[in-house]
């Protein structure tokens, strides 16, 4: 990396040095991120991996399965280029897919946590998967599967501590607004409804969380916009409403207070990953919500 500074001062040079050092991977890397994918999603996954490697000083290992052909391992390594960590792309041909753990284990960073991420389809039992077994935290993304609702339910049925799904991460802002609304109104919630695009997986999870926390049934309605459109909590004091009116903006209504608009945007993938990588412990609240999801699905 070469940084040119013209008409500068030693102060700017010093600042540029620190900045460059931060992005050059000089100091300790904090985690290993294993990204597991099939060949047909390779390109998009690789760009997500690069974005992640740029955001965090970590070792990113992309594990790609290529079904045909004899067993063979191809690897490419990228270091520097504006990334604070390193990026290793492994292409596993044929039989090797069943022995991915033996390939990855020697490459994990010492001591620090390992996170596995399946951006698309994921095995049923994450913790029992060769790669999943190496990881302390396992992240999936139901939205990247062919049938997100099914995928979410499968995740919920096979949940083990340390698993999370990005569906959950996408809900954090919604949940924060709703929790903040109750912080202010202090009213008892007597009813709840969620309006969303038909068959929307995040909405299903949000409804499961609400009914788990509030111990009331949550009604579901189809809306016209993509994703979650609106959440309304009926309280003894009046309605709490969060309704998305445009991309990035929502109407926020709390009893006895004027209606307000708030920023509520869809967060890019790197944001979601950053949130996931902050927490290395199991997410009990997610687990409770998935239990409720399974119970609802089975009509209990």
């Amino acid at each position, binding site marked *: 990396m070469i940084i040119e500074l013209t008409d500068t*001062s*030693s*102060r700017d040079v*010093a*600042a540029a040095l*620190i900045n460059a*050092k*931060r992005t050059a*991977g*000089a*100091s*300790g890397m*904090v*985690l290993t991120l294993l990204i597991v994918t099939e060949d047909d999603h390779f390109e998009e996954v690789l760009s997500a991996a690069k974005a992640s490697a740029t*955001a*965090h*000083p*970590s070792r990113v290992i992309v594990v790609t399965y290529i079904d045909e052909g004899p067993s063979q391992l191809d690897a490419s390594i990228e270091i520097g280029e504006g990334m*604070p960590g390193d990026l290793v792309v492994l292409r596993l041909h044929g039989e090797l897919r069943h022995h991915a753990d033996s390939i990855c284990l020697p490459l994990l960073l010492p001591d620090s946590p390992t996170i596995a991420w399946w951006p698309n389809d994921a095995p049923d039992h994450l913790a029992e998967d060769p790669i999943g077994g190496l990881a302390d935290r396992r992240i999936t993304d139901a939205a990247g599967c062919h049938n997100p609702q099914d995928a979410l339910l499968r995740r919920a049925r096979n949940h083990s501590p340390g698993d999370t799904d990005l569906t959950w*991460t996408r809900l*954090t*802002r919604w*949940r*924060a*607004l*709703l*929790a*903040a609304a*109750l*912080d*202010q109104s*202090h009213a008892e*919630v007597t009813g709840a409804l969620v309006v969303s695009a038909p068959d929307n997986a995040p909405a299903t999870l949000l409804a499961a969380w*609400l009914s788990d*926390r*509030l*111990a009331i049934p949550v009604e579901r309605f189809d809306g016209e916009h993509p994703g979650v459109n609106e959440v309304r909590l009926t309280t003894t004091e009046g309605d709490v409403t969060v309704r998305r009116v445009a991309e*990035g*903006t929502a109407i*926020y209504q*709390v009893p*006895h*207070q*004027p209606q*307000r*608009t*708030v*920023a509520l*945007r869809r967060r890019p993938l790197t944001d979601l990953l*950053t*949130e996931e*990588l*902050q*927490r290395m412990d199991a*997410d*009990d*609240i997610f687990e409770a919500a998935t239990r409720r999801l399974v119970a609802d699905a089975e009509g209990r």
Partner: protein
Amino acid sequence: MNSYVNPLRDPQDRRLPRIAGPCVLVIFGVTGDLSRKKLMPAVYDLANRGMLPPGFGLVGFARRDWADQDFAQVVHDAVKENARTPFREEVWEQLLEGIRFVPGTFDDDQSFERLRDTIRDLDTARGTGGNHAFYLSIPPSSFEQVMTQLRRHGMTERHEGNWNRVVIEKPFGHDLESARELDDVVSVLFQPHEVFRIDHYLGKETVQNMLALRFANQMFEPIWNNHYVSHVEITMAEDIGIGGRAGYFDGIGIARDVIQNHLLQLLALTAMEEPTSFEAGQLRAEKKKVLAAARVPDRYDLHTARGQYAAGWQGGRPVIGYLEEDGVSPGSTTETYAAMRVDIDNRRWAGVPFYLRSAKRMPRRVTEVALSFKRAPHLPFTATDTEELGTNALVMRIQPDEGVTLRFGAKVPGTQMEIREVSMDFGYGGSFTESSPEAYERLILDVLLGDPPLFPQQEEVELSWKILDPVIEYWASLKQQPEQYASGTWGPASGREMLARDGFSWRRP
């Protein structure tokens, strides 16, 4: 207190940020540099991270003939230029709805009438419900006037369920007496827990980092005392001069400006015993104990040093000396370099000198706390083997590039037995998946949430003045001007001699 438990919250649910309740932030002195470079961007960054309540009002008060939209434009530009997080239109729109400007002066009743009406209007229109935070980004001399006006116009009334808080900036007075007067002025209107003192050099993040390093680890505590530590150097160097701030700085000096609050806080955090919990009150109790035990040794002529920057070259640019700055009289005795030794009379630190120094126009901008260790009692090497070996050091870097450096000896590769100093580095910026929030972001959030501040309360401020006052009095009694030092160097000879007398030398930060 009421016992409402929010069913949507759970201590286990650490993804959910705490969002402050609806409130109005009123900034006095909103046209200042600080407000543009730090406060407004911090407000935006908070909004962008989803930490600000829906229903947040930002009111600027200053002597400008501005309408709301002019002020909004100023905020907009400040945010675009200085915010830490990317600019997003929808977040800006949310903020914009609550932005108001009140033109006026502190002595004008009408201005404060307008301010009250503006706040009342926001209370209903935005639902901010009488929750007000007043940020006094103004000289302390105006505090009394503003306080009187706030009270006269009924802006700090307490009702059921609302709050009023005030933020004041360092310096908290210019000596013990004025600090007490200032406190009297503020405490007429605000209770101690409603007063947030900010030292923007020392964010809560830094304080917590230091606490975590000291008390979350087993390996540092055993050596954190006079058995192993030979001396401690606490440095805060700025690479700039006073700029246009002669009116503020001349007559005050760097010791009052920085050592009283910032360096003595760093000293307290470094030297204090472990608090029984990290509750703010407990933390303050420990800091108070150590500050009460700290003093500058009596021979001020031997254990303190002061200087003034002279013209010179600083980082490749020619700069003028302090006495040539606009608004500084050629006979000024205000120091721009201050160094002093502080001894702490307790079992842990007796015999370990703490050297504090703070200065302007140093070679680079740096703040750090360096613990130097004693030499090993016996070295089983020949003298030539260890010729290059200094002493071990643990350096807490505060800024820039916050982190920790350990220095120790290692063998130079090769057949010769030669031992030399090496460094092991840790940086907060490169070791986590998140970047640290700005000090102001943390502070404003604390103010809005009403989190007990880790910032000093009055008693600590007074203890700090008690340490510093005698030194400043001694300096004032001297006939000659402070020693000149060339800009862009590490300070005057007297500063080096001060350490040399004790057998040490400043490390180069």
